[in-house]
């Protein structure tokens, strides 16, 4: 009797499993977290999974590996295939990652839902690669176009697979479709962001014409045009360079689609970017404080100006969010991130020019390192220096 009662209560508690996030809530949160993770990357050396075998997923697969897939693995070599997992476009091992490892994994995904998710994961991989290449300054136009085509191909494949998901899994279908939307939005911002959205002629148009050409509602376009107009007329080339740089930082979605100003996904992405930026500025502040006593006044002034500019853009972006101008906030945060990147490069340059024994912190050459690696070097140095101080 008692056991029956217990089972009864357990069944009642089971009804609570119906409580879950709505699809809209999940989409927004995922967009926020995706953006946050994208802009605060894990340092490769600290991330264990980079060295995980690409075949580790086989452990969870119950059916035998298809003969063709196994032949491919053996032909390519497990070691090569394993090493290829960290490859980026342009690396000789990259085709193995994309055409062998990922294809095999796709073959082994069972069911429409699993296949759709894997296609989306592949699209997200391409976007992450674009972000990494861009951080290194290696994202060429050809690579960008190739990645864009692959993202489109994978998201379309995911949509095709999702059409075969059973009707009783409508929640999962909705989740996949919202993930498709988020992935495409991320593609627009990250992969396509370096595509100039207007040519030099258009960029030099007065704000009134630009606004009518691109939509009055898009405050970010007006902001860009105003910046160009305010520049000294004697330094036309310089102002054009500034404008083009800003245009490159402006996501095409922001420039072209003013309707997204009110999109909940865009808002979530902007907030994710804001949180990431706060983290990066905080770290930069610590680095600047650490090097103050060992750097010339002139260099320190340059570094501080970059930091102040970045902080001001952060605050302006926060104000833009408060006013609901998410496109403008995106632009400001992108500029702030650019300043932080320049700040780190400047610090590295200064220290590389100093005699080794006079260097207050140990940094690797920045020209070959993405920003997140530099940050780890700085933070590691801070930790080790603190340890040395304690020892003394």
């Amino acid at each position, binding site marked *: 009797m008692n056991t029956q*009662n*217990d089972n009864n*209560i*357990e069944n*009642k*508690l*089971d*009804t*609570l*499993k*119906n*409580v*879950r*996030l*709505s*699809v809209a*809530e*999940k989409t927004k*949160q*995922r967009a*926020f*977290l*995706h953006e*946050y*993770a*994208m802009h*605060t*990357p*894990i*340092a*490769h050396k*600290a*991330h*264990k*999974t*980079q060295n*995980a*075998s*690409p075949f*580790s*997923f086989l452990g969870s697969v119950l059916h035998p590996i298809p003969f063709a897939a196994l032949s491919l693995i053996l032909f390519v070599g497990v070691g090569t295939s394993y090493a290829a*997992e*960290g490859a980026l476009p342009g690396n000789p091992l990259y085709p193995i990652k994309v055409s062998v490892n990922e294809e095999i994994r796709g073959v082994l995904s069972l069911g429409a839902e699993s296949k759709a*998710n894997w296609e989306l*994961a592949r699209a*997200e*991989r391409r976007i*992450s690669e674009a972000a*990494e290449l861009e951080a290194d300054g290696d994202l060429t136009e050809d690579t960008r176009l190739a990645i864009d085509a692959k993202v489109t191909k994978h998201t379309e494949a995911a949509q095709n697979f999702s059409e075969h998901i059973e009707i009783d899994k409508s*929640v999962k279908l909705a*989740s996949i479709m919202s*993930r498709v939307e988020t992935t495409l939005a991320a593609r627009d911002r990250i992969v396509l962001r370096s595509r100039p959205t207007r040519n030099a002629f258009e960029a030099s148009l007065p704000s009134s014409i630009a606004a009518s050409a691109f939509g009055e509602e898009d405050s970010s376009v007006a902001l860009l045009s105003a910046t160009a107009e305010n520049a000294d007329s004697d330094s036309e080339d310089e102002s054009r360079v500034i404008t083009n740089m800003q245009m490159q930082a402006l996501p095409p979605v922001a420039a072209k689609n003013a309707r997204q100003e009110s999109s909940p996904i865009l808002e979530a992405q902007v907030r994710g970017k804001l*949180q990431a930026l706060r*983290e990066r500025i905080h770290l930069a502040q610590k680095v600047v404080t650490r090097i103050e006593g060992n750097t010339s006044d002139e260099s320190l002034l340059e570094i501080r100006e970059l930091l102040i500019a970045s902080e001001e853009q952060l605050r302006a972006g926060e104000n833009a969010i408060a006013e609901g101008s998410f496109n403008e906030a995106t632009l400001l945060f992108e500029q702030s991130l650019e300043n932080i990147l320049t700040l780190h490069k400047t610090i590295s340059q200064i220290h590389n020019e100093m005699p080794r024994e006079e260097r207050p912190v140990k940094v690797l050459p920045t020209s070959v390192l993405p920003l997140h690696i530099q940050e*780890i070097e700085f933070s590691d140095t801070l930790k080790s220096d603190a340890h040395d101080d304690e020892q003394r």
Partner: protein
Amino acid sequence: MSDTSNPTGQEDFLAAYDEYSDAIFRFCLVKVSDREKALDITQETFTRAWDYQRKGSIIESWKPFLFRTAYNLIVDSYRKKKSSSLDAMEEDINFIPPDTATLTTEMKAEFSRVIKALDSLDDGFKEPITLRFVEGLSPSEIGAIMGVSENVISVRIHRGLEKLKVLLHAHDV
């Protein structure tokens, strides 16, 4: 999931979100009785998990890690104040998510009764029961999350169920 190979770590992270966000959200909602707050804590839980990895640590098993993080955040949040009553929560149309639209009226009533009874329990019983019977965690996993022994959890689950029986019976009457 932790051994999935991906250079940036984002795949694992987003896959963990896809897999556990509903469970974490449910746990938070039952505990704080405020949908907006539960949403915030869920997001913060995942943000902290990413920060933890980003700073060089490794998450071997996502599920206990996320529940433990959410639990700590809830404790912090609870120290401040439990902001809204269960009645207010029930009045909020969003509390019952759209996915339950397919539930019958009877099932919805049952759902509401269980939530009310669970909310009447002391926190020491509510958490182990939710984690055990809704999320399917073992007593040792719950103990690790709450920072107490497996035995203590087993006792709380047993006593909590007894109390819950009485409460549900009282509601029935």
